[in-house]
Structure formats: structure tokens, C-alpha cells
């Protein structure tokens, strides 16, 4: 009886959503499907097949995938370690990873530029250790590095959340039935954190795929991701229609990820990163 009334509380948000989420997307779609004269066309979307765009989207997919993989490989053991600490407040851990964001994103990337540059701190350390000088700045490697840095928390948090939800009895039961550490990891912990992994992968892969500032700042303008192309169309080439068309193509990836998320995360719990 109260449920109906309660649902109306979502009313303001619904209006907001229609006005400022869905309507703008409709605008993008409109631009994507028209020429500058307002005539209908598919060419803006078909433009993704242009070799230049194909190249950049392939590069974006590649760097995004590498970044996601690195984040996953770094996060998983980290979350396992963190979950053995019984923090009184889970939110404390969460905010430890969110906290760096209070320092402006551009400044932090800038700091990485200082650290990674030819005679920066990282190279000095490498030199001291005897690894020798490694050119990192203005390479795809640096871009991946920056992406990993920026998106790592978005991988850690959902995995950590699903990890702490595993009941200790479940692990004890597995051990009791003869499972060693490796079996427990593969057969119990991994499947039970799968929904966290999926949302983590999506939360990292999608922004990595679409990012443009990081590649600009750490790639030295030599790494052209699909996000840079769109930015260029909007800001330099000023072909909004082409930019919109490419954006719509990007959104297909986003929608596909969301669908994936729905399949793997039935209760909607994994989406709740925080």
C-alpha cells in the first residue's frame, strides 16, 4: 500500500533523467543521423569504417584491454589481502581509494609526467637500480600507465565489495572438504567474486576506451584514441555530425557492457560499487 506512494519519490529523478540523460542522447543521435544541412544520413556512423578511425578504435580497444587486464591483475590479490583485514568500516577502505581524487585529476596526471619524463624520478630510480634509462613518456605505455592509475579504484572497489561478502564458513567448508588454497581460489573465491570482476572490468574498460585527456597528456599527442578523434571533431574539426556519429558507435560498446552487467549481476548488487 505504501509502495505505490513510495515509488513516486523517484518522480523528480525520472523527470531529471528524461530531461538531462535521455534527451541529450536523443540530440546526439539526431546529429549523428543528419548532415550539416539537416538531411538524413548514415555516413557519420559509417565513418567508423574509415581506416583512420578503425586504426584508432583498434588502438583504443587494445589499450583499454591491456589497462583492464593490468588493473584486474593488480586488484585481485590486493582485494584478497584487504579482505583478510577485518576493517571496522568498509567505507574507510573505499575512501582510501577515492581520496586521491580530491587532488585535481589534471594535476595528478601532470605529476606523472614529471615522474615518467626522461630525467624524471622514476628513471632516476631505474638508473640507480641499474635497469637503465627507459623511455616511457609519450608512448602508448605511458597512456596505459595513466589509465591504470586513474581507473584502478574502479576495479578494486567492486571486487573488494564482492570479496568481503563471501562468508568465512563457505571457505571453511571448502577446506573441510579437502580443498587446498589453490582449489579454494579457483573453485570458490573466483566464481563468487565474478559479478564484482565483471562490474570492475566494465567500470575500467569503458572509461579507458573513451578517454581522451590521458592520451593527450601522457601520450604527447602521438597516441590517437577514438576519444581523441571525437574530441577533435567537436573542438578542432568542428564537424559535430561526424563527432556525434562516432559517439553513437562508442555508446554501442557502453550498451553492450550494460547488457553484460545485467546478465551477470542479477540482483543489481555488483553495480553498487560503493
Amino acid at each position, binding site marked *: 500500500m505504501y509502495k505505490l506512494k513510495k515509488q513516486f519519490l523517484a518522480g523528480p529523478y525520472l523527470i531529471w533523467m528524461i530531461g538531462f540523460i535521455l534527451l541529450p542522447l536523443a540530440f546526439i543521435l539526431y546529429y549523428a543521423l543528419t548532415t550539416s544541412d539537416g538531411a538524413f544520413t548514415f555516413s557519420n556512423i559509417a565513418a567508423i569504417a574509415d581506416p*583512420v*578511425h578503425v*586504426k*584508432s578504435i583498434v*588502438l583504443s580497444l587494445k589499450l583499454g584491454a591491456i589497462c583492464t587486464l593490468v588493473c584486474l591483475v593488480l586488484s585481485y590479490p590486493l582485494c584478497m589481502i584487504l579482505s583478510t583485514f577485518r576493517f571496522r568500516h568498509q567505507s574507510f577502505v573505499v575512501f582510501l581509494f577515492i581520496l586521491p581524487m580530491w587532488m585535481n585529476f589534471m594535476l595528478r596526471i601532470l605529476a606523472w*609526467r614529471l615522474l615518467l*619524463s*626522461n*630525467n624524471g624520478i622514476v628513471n632516476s630510480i631505474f638508473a640507480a637500480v641499474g635497469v637503465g634509462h627507459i*623511455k616511457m*613518456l*609519450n608512448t602508448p605505455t605511458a597512456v596505459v600507465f595513466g589509465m591504470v592509475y586513474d581507473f584502478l579504484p574502479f576495479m578494486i572497489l567492486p571486487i573488494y565489495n564482492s570479496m568481503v561478502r563471501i562468508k568465512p564458513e563457505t571457505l571453511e567448508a571448502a577446506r573441510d572438504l579437502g580443498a587446498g588454497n589453490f582449489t579454494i581460489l579457483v573453485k570458490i573465491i573466483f566464481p563468487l567474486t565474478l559479478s564484482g570482476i565483471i562490474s570492475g572490468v566494465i567500470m575500467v574498460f569503458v572509461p579507458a576506451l573513451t578517454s581522451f585527456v590521458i592520451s593527450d597528456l601522457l601520450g*604527447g*599527442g*602521438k*597516441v*590517437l584514441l577514438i576519444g*581523441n*578523434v571525437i574530441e*577533435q*571533431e*567537436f*573542438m*578542432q*574539426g*568542428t*564537424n559535430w555530425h561526424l563527432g556525434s556519429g562516432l559517439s553513437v558507435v562508442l555508446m554501442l560498446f557502453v550498451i553492450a557492457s550494460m547488457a553484460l552487467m545485467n546478465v551477470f549481476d542479477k540482483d543489481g548488487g555488483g553495480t553498487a560499487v560503493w
Partner: protein
Amino acid sequence: GSSSNTADADKDTLVVLNYGKYLEPSVIEQFEQETGIHIKLEEYESPEEMYTKFTAGSICYDVVCTSDYMIERLISEGEVSTIDFSGFSNYGNLNPDIIDASRVFDPEACCSMPYFYGTLGILYNTTMVPTEEAQSWNILWDDTYRDSIIMQNSVRDTFVPALRLSGYDINTEDEDELADALALLIEQKPIVYAYYVDETADEMAAGNAAMALVYSGEAAYAMELNDDLSYAVPEEGSNLWIDSWFIPKRCAHRENAEKFLDFLCRGDIAMANFEYVCYASPNQKVVDALDEETKNDPTIFPPDEILEYCTVYKQLGIDTTERYSYLWKTLKSE
């Protein structure tokens, strides 16, 4: 966009669109104090960005400062109104040569007012690069400086060395000539350290690169930080750029805008701006007041012989603009 804009009808305001950090803050204050007009300053990074903002039309700018070819484009699109310089009391302070030079993009010289000008050249580190080598664009293709060359992260500037090396006009619209230039640039890309806009000066000052393609103003800023740096405009010829003010047709506060432009021409004000920005000022009063060393610094004030083989950008046709955009993407995705 909505062209009629009445929300900002407040008579005592002036909406100014300018490059970032291109106006001494105290100048704004002084203007506000003297006239009681409140300035809303909006800044941008590149002319193209400015074009986006401007044509989006959601903000009604009263006065805009931008680069030569962009003004030409806006004039051709009918967005620029003529300025009544006769009502100005300080317009005479401007160097007529520079006003003449701006006829390339503003044939009548009635729609724009020069603000700063300068050249495009090579900023190099004298400890790594011999001065004589830096007098040719060829050095940008020299494999010994692999990973020590910084190019501009903007299309037309980066195409200038390539076009001039092949002997083409920097305002060419010929597809083949552009293709040749692109081939050169693609050949160059592996030895390029980075395509930077903003970071060039700092990187050069830090000694992270041997040379960079920069504007003269930026070069001056970097040289202040690092004594080893020097600046040269290669003899193959380069770009002379003029940043000028114009008043859009849609301007809501024409009177205030003209008052502001006149104010900028005032000797003391132009001086303040010069000291803040450090680019060559077209204002004769400023030049006169400067000490000899500054006045003769070729980095700041390009000598006439250099100006001779420099060309101002012309606005390109829509096809060529899109061609440039595509070539740029091709270069970057290599």
C-alpha cells in the same frame, strides 16, 4: 542556436572571449573601475575551440580576440561587424605596418584590431643544437635528434615546416601538395618526442628536448627560464601570426566593446599587457617606451628581414579544412 540574447541585456556588462592568460588581470580591474562596466571573461585554448564556442551561440560575446585565419573565416561567414575606429582616441598608437599586414585576412582593415603578433619558429637548446643548423626546417627531420623534437599539437602549425621544406605555400589548398607534406610528417613522426601545445616551454626549459616548434611568445617565456635556449625563424619561411580583436555582429553591448578596445590601445594599458604576455605588441607607444635590449630582441620583435619571408595564415575553404582534419588524424594514428 538562439541568436537573440536578452538575458544579458544588463547595460553595464561586457562579455569578452580571449585566449587563456592573454589579458593582464589588473587591466580588467582598471577598466571596470574607470568605466563601471563589468567584464565577464571567457577563455579558450585554440582558435578552433573558440570557433566551437562562438558558433554554439549560447553565449553572446561582445568582443573576441582570436587569430588571423579564424577572423577571416568569421568575416566570410558574416559574423563580424565593422568597428568604428573614428570614435577611438588611442587607435593612432597602433603601428600602421601591422595594420597593413592584417589586410591579408581583413582586406579593409575595418573589422579587426591587432593585439599581438609574432612568428612561428624553432626554439632550441644551444647546448645540444648548433645555432647554424637551427636556421633550417631540415633540422626537424634530423635523426640525430631522435626523441628530442617537440612539434605543435595543432594542424596548420605542424604542416608549416613540411610545406615550406617542399617549397609550397603555407596557405596551399592543393591536395597533392598537402599529401606530400603529410608524407614528410609521417616520416618525421618516429623521431618526434611529442606533439605539445601548452607544455612545450616547460619541457624545453627542463631540458627534456633539444628543439621545439613554437610561437615566438612562448619561446621568450621559455628563454626566461633557461638561458641555454635560443629561438630562430628558419629561412625557408614561416608563419606570421596576428591576434586581433573583433566585434561580433550579435554583440549586445557594442558601445562597451568599442570603449574596451579603445582602452586597450592606451599606452599604459598596452604596456601592462605586453609585460604580462611578452609577445610583440603592435602598439608604437609600447615599443617606444621599451629599453633597447628588449626592443631589439629578435625573439620578441621579429626584425623586418624575417617578417619578409613570413606569411599570415589565410582562411582555407571548407574542403581543405576537412582535408586538414583528416590528414591530421592520419598522421596521429600512424
